[in-house]
């Protein structure tokens, strides 16, 4: 085990992914000499050369479309989108090509493309640099979507994503890049939990919190705080948000009967909506209260000085915990 930041663990996953398979190459803006604006690809161009660590022209559709062509040719491109808010020019290539080519060609053409997206807010950034676009991809059939919350998962799941013959959108929370954790770089990947399996980050019996990405540590803090208050919270780090591991989720919900979902993305038709709908469909008779969502508001991401009023924090999660426990909360007496 080695103590690494999440940024470094992603860097290691890329390095070992490339070392293991000559067909793996990475492409994006400023990933070469600069090592990426977050230094996630630091040193890789020096090690693997400009043919495998490709600084591309500044055009996301171009990056994604050429990655599709490379996949046609048998390569396994790992594409870096510089910031979450810059993935939209590539949306057509992702939705109509990356997600559909395997289906279109009846399995003849594989699209083993990994799309890495530095993701979400809380870092005081300018407009378009704090977006949470994951629901767009979750809603797109043909893609797999994962979101990591700690260095170990970041390492293992990126290696699994690269090894997958399906396209994987891999979200890495910017505000956790510098968080450190133990990473087992040498473990056999075959022994690791598969990419699609959720993790019970903390066991509890009263309330289940479903979350992913940078909200995982916030939920963990909320669980700790609730403990002082006599409430036992189970925190599930979904890891894969498409597909979701409903085995783990429903087991927890059947135990607690109370569910809070939290994510940074806007609420309307977000991943939280899917989670609540699915949990309600699957566990209706076990639910003691209406599941609650704690999400970004249905607004464009606000200016940095106001973002703390948008990104869900510990207090808002605890308020929702009170809601599902039917204790006094901000919605008490509010009729919707």
């Amino acid at each position, binding site marked *: 085990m080695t103590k690494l930041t999440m940024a470094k663990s992603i860097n290691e996953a890329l390095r070992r992914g490339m070392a293991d398979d000559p067909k793996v*190459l990475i492409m994006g803006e400023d990933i070469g000499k600069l090592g990426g604006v977050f230094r996630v690809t630091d040193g890789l161009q020096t090690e693997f050369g400009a*043919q*495998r660590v490709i600084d*591309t*022209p500044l*055009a996301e*559709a*171009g990056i*994604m*479309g*050429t*990655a*599709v*062509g*490379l*996949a*046609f*040719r*048998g*390569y396994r491109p790992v594409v870096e989108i510089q910031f979450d808010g810059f993935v939209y*020019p590539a949306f*057509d*290539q992702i939705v*109509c*090509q990356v997600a*559909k080519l*395997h*289906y*279109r*060609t*009846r*399995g*003849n*053409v*594989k699209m*083993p493309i990994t799309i890495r997206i530095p993701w979400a807010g809380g870092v005081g950034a300018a407009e378009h640099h704090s977006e949470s676009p994951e629901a767009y991809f979750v809603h797109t*059939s*043909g893609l*797999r979507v994962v979101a990591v919350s700690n260095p170990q998962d970041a390492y293992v799941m990126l290696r699994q994503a690269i090894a*997958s*013959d*399906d396209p994987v959108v891999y979200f890495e929370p910017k505000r956790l890049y510098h968080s450190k954790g133990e990473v087992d770089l040498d473990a056999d990947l075959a022994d690791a939990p598969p990419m*699609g399996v959720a993790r019970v980050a903390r066991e509890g019996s009263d309330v289940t919190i479903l979350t992913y990405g940078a909200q995982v540590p916030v939920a963990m803090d909320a669980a700790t705080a609730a403990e002082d208050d006599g409430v036992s919270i189970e925190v599930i780090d979904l890891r894969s948000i*498409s*597909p*979701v*591991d*409903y085995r783990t989720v429903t087991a927890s919900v059947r135990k607690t009967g109370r569910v809070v979902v939290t994510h940074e993305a806007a609420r309307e038709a977000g991943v939280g909506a899917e989670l609540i709908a699915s949990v309600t469909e699957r566990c209706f008779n076990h639910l003691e209260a209406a599941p609650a969502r704690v999400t970004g508001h249905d607004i464009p991401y606000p200016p940095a000085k106001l973002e703390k009023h948008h990104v869900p924090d510990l207090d808002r999660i605890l308020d929702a915990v009170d809601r599902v426990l039917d204790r006094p909360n901000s919605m008490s007496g509010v009729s919707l």
Partner: protein
Amino acid sequence: MHTFTATTEPQIDIDDVARLVTPDGERIADPDLERWIADVDTAMLQSLYRDMVLVRRVDTEGVALQRQGQLGLWAPCQGQEATQVGTARGFRADDFVFPSYREIGVQHVRGAKPEDFVLAWRGESHSTYNPYDINTASPQIIIGAQSLHAVGYAMGIQRDGTDQVAAAYFGDGASSQGDVNEAMVFASSFRAPVIFVCTNNQWAISEPVTVQAKFPIAGRAPGFGIPSMRVDGNDVLACLAAMRWAADIARRGGGPAFIEAVTYRMGPHTTSDDPTRYRDKEEVERWRHRDPIARVEALLRKMDAFDDAFAAQVGADADALGAEVRAAALGAVTRPAIEVFDDVYAEPHTGLTEQRAWYGSYLDGFDTEAA
């Protein structure tokens, strides 16, 4: 001088093209093209002619099948046979081609089988042949998207160190898409061995090419550092020569090349379209006199290489292919419902496995009820 002005007038002369055979079938010399067809003998010319006749026959059959309700839609390529056959004959089998929905002739030359022309238009599947069998991608419907795929494929060729080329076909309308322009940027930046073939058939559904471009489309590529050629798209020899010129650049490590083939969409955009709403009969008639097949026939006749036996043989081959295409359409068997879930993912997917199982039992419920 540090100003750049457009070198051509804002009007597009359809005769301002590289050409080897006049519309009347006269063989003329062209300084850019000549060396690329030095080896073309009578047999080769006859075989180009034959390919075009076969393609037209497939096209006619497709239109007929659609009219008879056997196909959902058809995108006719009549008038464009020389562009498609001529350029496609310039590839090697191990080159890789990314066509659009109208490239029937390209698919034919690449080795598509009779059923490959109709099963997708019939709605049986989104695509037919396995792209790797004929080194040709499934025809692309999203306008321009395939141009980037070809560049990416060509980048793969570079990494593999072979002398193959990749190519993308797209239309005059497509030339407006951001993807096509980004494809030129990437191709130029990486010097990728890719050939862009812009089939300027004068129309993008109802929009004349002048909506997309007031100047020749071939004139855009050089600004990106890509050599280009504007060729008579109804002259199969010129199209072959143009592709050989382009492929030679790409194969020799010279990077991308661009061909604008100036031709005409004689039919409607698709069988759903009604071109009388937007274009003049006279224009269509003018182009009928430039027919790409008649042109080669005239040339072959002048060369004394077109006799009744040859015509009959080609006609019989075309009839046979047409019949096979028809049989493929009529004989198509729709896949079982449950196969809608196949091939969404390459690896097992818990969500979809569950949906598939449910839908299977839902369908079974009907059988039970019926029983």
